[in-house]
């Protein structure tokens, strides 16, 4: 089944708030080998001017993936998840994601393209606090491999 090109330009409603916690930041930092104490020690973080411990640069993917799930799980979109490969990922941080943040994401489907039997879908998740402060723009391109 082909990816539905009508989804290009579609914007979804904000995701339910994701509460960023110290424990999840620590767990993620350990999993990627991020050794900067700013991820685990609140006194280091506040000493550098942050409100609390901050997340590593790619932590935002956790929340962006929840945004993308709205599209991927939509049967109308025609995306076969078993054929999905991650092609490209980009983060532009407006400020570091910080423990205590309540984060909502708004997903927009920037483009849907077909090339060489494969489909490429580029999505953009605008992450912000529930108070409206911009945190991160996460852009992702997935490739849906064509059938044999």
């Amino acid at each position: 089944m082909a990816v539905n090109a009508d989804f290009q330009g579609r914007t979804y409603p904000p995701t339910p708030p994701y509460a960023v916690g110290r424990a999840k930041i620590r767990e993620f930092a350990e999993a990627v080998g991020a050794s900067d104490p700013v991820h685990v020690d609140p006194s280091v973080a506040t000493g550098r001017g942050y409100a609390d411990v901050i997340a590593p640069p790619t932590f935002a993917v956790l929340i962006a993936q929840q945004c993308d799930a709205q599209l991927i799980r939509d049967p109308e979109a025609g995306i076969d998840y078993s054929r999905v490969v991650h092609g490209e990922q980009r983060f532009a941080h407006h400020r570091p994601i910080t423990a205590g943040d309540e984060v909502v994401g708004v997903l927009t489907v920037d483009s849907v393209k077909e090339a060489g039997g494969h489909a490429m879908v580029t999505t953009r998740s605008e992450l912000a606090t529930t108070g409206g402060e911009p945190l991160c723009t996460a852009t992702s391109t997935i490739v849906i491999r064509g059938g044999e």
Partner: protein
Amino acid sequence: MAIRKAKDVAVGEELPGRTVHVERATLVQYAGASLDRNPIHWDERFAKSVGLPDVIAHGMFTMGSVVGVVSDWAGDAGRVVEYGVRFTKPVVVPYEGGADIEVAAVVKKLDQETRRAAVELTVTCDGVKVLGRALAVVALD
């Protein structure tokens, strides 16, 4: 750890590189932490059934682990303000011995006015580039 100053940086400067060693256990840990539980990253039988040579690392694990080179050089992980990569080749992680990801990085651009440096990462596994266009922008002091 002091924050690196723009005036102490030059285009062409090489950052200290590193080797990131990956085992199956590393991927299971990342799967739990990131909530990306796709079995191609931990179940060899499943990975092979969908045409992969073996279990492969999460692209996001590779992206997330190699940026430590940039964070540590900057002196604060919060100074990495932009970061983007293309996933060009998978990192295959065999049961025996795991895999080694080699990371090198160099300053490609520097703006003394905004104190922002663009750092290009070269990331290989078994001599093959696994990330393309890997670029991080760092806000320096």
